[in-house]
């Protein structure tokens, strides 16, 4: 199982090494990986449909409770099958769609990374690995959206999606931390047994807010939905795979997975219903105003995601059944429509819905696939979509609150969705073939077979719903709802309200399609509201933030070294003064201080003289020399108090500092007084206060009873454990070796920095960027 989940990571590491192979026609061979995984997961159906929950445990960091605990129940199996099944089709499709792209190997690498991350996420039973995989899906999505990295728009879209889903990720981590704290375990399946401890917990609201923000950003719910249409800048296989069929459903998965723990609470249900409801109506309405095929599909995807969240919010078993069915329905028809869009774009070079028509004459199999997808999307019998829509309507009708209102919302959404599916799946193929497309021909089989398979699957499940029912839908629902009533998926329920609603949906939708044509006027009309849209608001916030950052940086990083020093010293002075006079009462006892020896007095006199000389000297070089003298005097003090290591280091460092100063200052122009008297007095006062405070602090520290435990530990153990007699050195290379390791890395970085600053000559081109 571990190998199955991580196989994509392995491929992602191999692809750059064997780039040439994966760019050639052999790239199609990679399809075997998701296909094998799909078959592998299919083999678990018998066990899971019997109600078994399979656990696979692999240790990773057991000391911190982070392990690869994989859990396979109905819900994760449903997602795993979707990820690998659609994955296999997308891999196949990609090998033809992107066959001339020089970055095909990279593309497969990212795609495999994503597939593994997604599989890992839906299988994880451990909060930490769930979080890691969740973030990995965001990261791989970033690379895939920005795959065309020379295009500014796609870079921007990638950044927006990364920022939003990353924001959600932070909240997820916070939510997980609280949950783990309350239950005392990182394992989800163990939490499930802990019962209702969350619902009365004071932190319940905080937890669900965290979860909601994570799920809503990932699954593009209003008002975070705007990254998804932008993400359509990605190549079509990515839009199909990540941004309609799988990744955007990660948020749905998260909510579904934690429904037994956190659900069935008024805040939980109502929030999901309201947010999901707004999203589904809002996005469905937008989808009918767009002309670009991919945009239409993007908004209808957002709408479908809203529908799923909405169904989760309804919170009764029937709604969960509807949700599980709708996940499958949506994945199948949306993948078909996206793949078709990709082919149309590939062959005709346009995605403008008003320019495409009559293509059935040259692409019959594709027209059939599109027609089948539309059947399922609009819920026309005998498709699986019809089964799904009936379930949705009966779920909304049986809701305890506002049944009529939410049913109307669902019907309206479905009418819009039907309209947009007609636009995407029928419009390009119906009518007359424009002369410019006479020479358009069928693409390679690797491109048209995948959408056809998806389209046919949507019908097969519709005619034989029992195929899906026991095997996957029922186990999936039982993972969400504690008790699942006996149910049977059927195509025909007899004449009832639900059938009436379906009929209304279909008739009104088709009428709308006949009457209403999307054109630029509608778009222009929508654009008037653009400044209120969440996207513009987010952009505004972003701009403000940038402005603030610039102002703040200019304030602190003003480029004057003396101001930096002044800021640091003043801040420290205030902090110390506050500490010294409020928190602890100053308690200085001079009696403990040992008497001065004559040598010390001599050093002290030299020190004071050289300090004064450094301050008053009119020559820069003389001041530097005086500073050197001060350094050496301090070395002497160290020697007096038996710290030879410190003295040696201080001595060498001081020597080098003086040399460095000399090198830099030697070339400077002649010494000029830049400051007036007032500034010098100000500086003197600040330095005096600071010096006094440090002195007081030193005396205060001397008075505190020192804790000799650390010293004793090193003294006792440095020879016993590390075989060294020089404690300072033993600490450096052994006890705190990791610190030293990091310190030398820091040193190296600073050397690199100096070298880069002084030696790197940017040419004109680089400077402009």
């Amino acid at each position, binding site marked *: 199982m571990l190998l199955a989940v991580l196989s994509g990571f392995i491929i992602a590491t191999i692809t750059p090494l064997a780039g040439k192979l994966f760019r050639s026609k052999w790239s199609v061979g990679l399809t075997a990986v998701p296909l094998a995984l799909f078959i592998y997961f299919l083999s678990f159906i018998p066990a899971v449909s019997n109600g078994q929950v399979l656990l696979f445990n692999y240790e990773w960091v057991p000391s911190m409770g982070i392990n690869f605990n994989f859990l396979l129940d109905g819900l994760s199996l449903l997602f795993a099958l979707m990820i690998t099944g659609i994955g296999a089709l997308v891999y196949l499709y990609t090998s033809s769609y992107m066959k001339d792209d020089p970055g095909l190997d990279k593309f497969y690498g990212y795609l495999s990374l994503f597939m593994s991350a997604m599989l890992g996420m839906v299988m994880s039973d451990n909060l930490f690995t769930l979080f890691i995989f969740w973030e990995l899906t965001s990261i791989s999505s970033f690379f895939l959206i920005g795959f065309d990295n020379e295009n500014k728009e796609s870079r921007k879209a990638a950044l927006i999606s990364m920022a939003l889903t990353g924001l959600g990720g932070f909240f997820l981590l916070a939510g997980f931390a609280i949950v783990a704290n309350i239950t005392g375990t990182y394992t989800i399946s163990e939490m499930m047994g802990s019962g209702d401890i969350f619902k009365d917990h004071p932190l319940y609201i905080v937890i669900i807010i965290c979860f909601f923000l994570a799920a809503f950003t990932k699954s593009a719910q209003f008002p975070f939905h705007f990254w998804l249409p932008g993400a359509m800048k990605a190549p079509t296989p990515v839009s199909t795979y990540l941004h309609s069929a799988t990744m955007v459903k990660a948020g749905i998965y998260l909510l579904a997975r934690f429904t037994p723990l956190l659900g069935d609470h008024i805040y939980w249900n109502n929030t999901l219903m309201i947010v999901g409801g707004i999203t589904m109506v809002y996005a469905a309405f937008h989808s009918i105003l767009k002309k670009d095929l991919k945009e239409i599909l993007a908004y209808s995807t957002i709408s479908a995601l809203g529908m799923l969240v909405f169904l989760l919010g309804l919170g009764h078993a029937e709604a969960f059944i509807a949700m599980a069915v709708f996940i499958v329905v949506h994945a199948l028809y949306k993948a078909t429509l996206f793949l078709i869009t990709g082919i149309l774009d590939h062959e005709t070079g346009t995605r403008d819905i008003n320019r495409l028509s009559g293509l059935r004459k040259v692409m019959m199999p594709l027209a059939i696939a599109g027609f089948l997808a539309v059947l399922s999307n609009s819920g026309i019998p005998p498709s699986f979509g019809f089964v799904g829509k009936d379930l949705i309507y009966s779920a909304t009708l049986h809701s305890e609150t506002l049944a009529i209102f939410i049913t109307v919302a669902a019907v309206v959404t479905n009418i819009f969705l039907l309209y947009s599916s007609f636009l995407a799946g029928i419009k390009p193929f119906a009518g007359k073939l424009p002369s410019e497309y006479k020479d358009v021909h069928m693409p390679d089989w690797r491109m048209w077979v995948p959408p056809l398979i998806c389209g046919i699957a949507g019908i097969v499940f519709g005619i034989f719903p029992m195929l899906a029912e026991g095997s996957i839908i029922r186990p999936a629902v039982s993972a969400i709802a504690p008790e699942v009533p006996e149910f049977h998926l059927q195509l025909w329920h007899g004449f009832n309200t639900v059938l009436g609603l379906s009929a209304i949906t279909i008739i009104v939708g088709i009428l709308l399609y006949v009457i209403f044509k999307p054109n630029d006027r509608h778009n222009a009309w929508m654009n008037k509201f653009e400044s209120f849209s969440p996207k513009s608001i987010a952009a505004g916030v972003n701009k403000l933030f940038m402005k603030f950052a610039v102002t703040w940086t200019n304030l602190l990083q003003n480029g004057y070294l003396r101001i930096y020093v002044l800021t640091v010293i003043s801040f420290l002075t205030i902090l110390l003064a506050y500490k010294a006079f409020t928190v602890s009462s100053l308690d200085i006892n001079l009696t403990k201080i040992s008497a001065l020896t004559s040598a010390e007095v001599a050093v002290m006199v030299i020190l004071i003289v050289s300090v004064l000389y450094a301050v008053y000297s009119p020559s820069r070089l003389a001041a530097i020399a005086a500073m050197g003298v001060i350094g050496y005097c301090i070395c002497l003090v160290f020697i007096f108090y038996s710290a030879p290591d410190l003295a040696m280091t201080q001595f060498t460092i001081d*020597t*080098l500092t003086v040399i*460095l100063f000399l090198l830099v200052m030697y070339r400077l122009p002649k010494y000029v007084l830049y400051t007036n008297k007032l500034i010098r007095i100000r500086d003197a006062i600040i330095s005096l206060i600071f010096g006094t405070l440090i002195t007081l602090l030193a005396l205060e520290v001397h008075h505190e009873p020192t804790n000799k435990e650390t010293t004793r530990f090193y003294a006792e153990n440095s020879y016993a454990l*590390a*075989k060294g007699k020089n404690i300072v050195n033993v600490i450096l290379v052994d006890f705190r070796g990791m610190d030293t*390791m990091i310190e*030398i890395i820091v040193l*190296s970085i600073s*050397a690199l920095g*100096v070298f880069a600053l002084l030696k790197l000559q940017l040419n004109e081109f680089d400077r402009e960027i």
Partner: protein
Amino acid sequence: MKQLIFRTATGFLLPLLLLFSVFILLRGHYLPGGGFVGGLIAAIAFVLHAFAFTLKETRKLIKINYRLLIPIGLALAFFSAILPMFKGLPILTGLWVYEPLPVVDMVGSSLLFDTGVYLVVVGVTLTIIFTISESA
């Protein structure tokens, strides 16, 4: 600074200082010293030479690119850190050869680590000082 005395003295001082720096490095585990101080002393030796002659002469003297000392030192320190992991011990555990040598006394992986520190310090100090003096 083209004084004859200074130059002649440097000719003797350079090897002496370098030897001294290695000595300081090796005795570090038992007596005052160690890789950090040792590295600084070695760096000072070269800087002294650069002052007495010219930077070009010092470069010729060092022969290899002194900037290379940084990655070499880092690699050495890192290698000594992960060495115990091959024996199944936690990272940075000290490994020892149980045969005392003169001056160094017992040799362990911490000496290797300290040598890494020494090389990094020499490399960093020379890089910074030489880069600055070249472009000043």
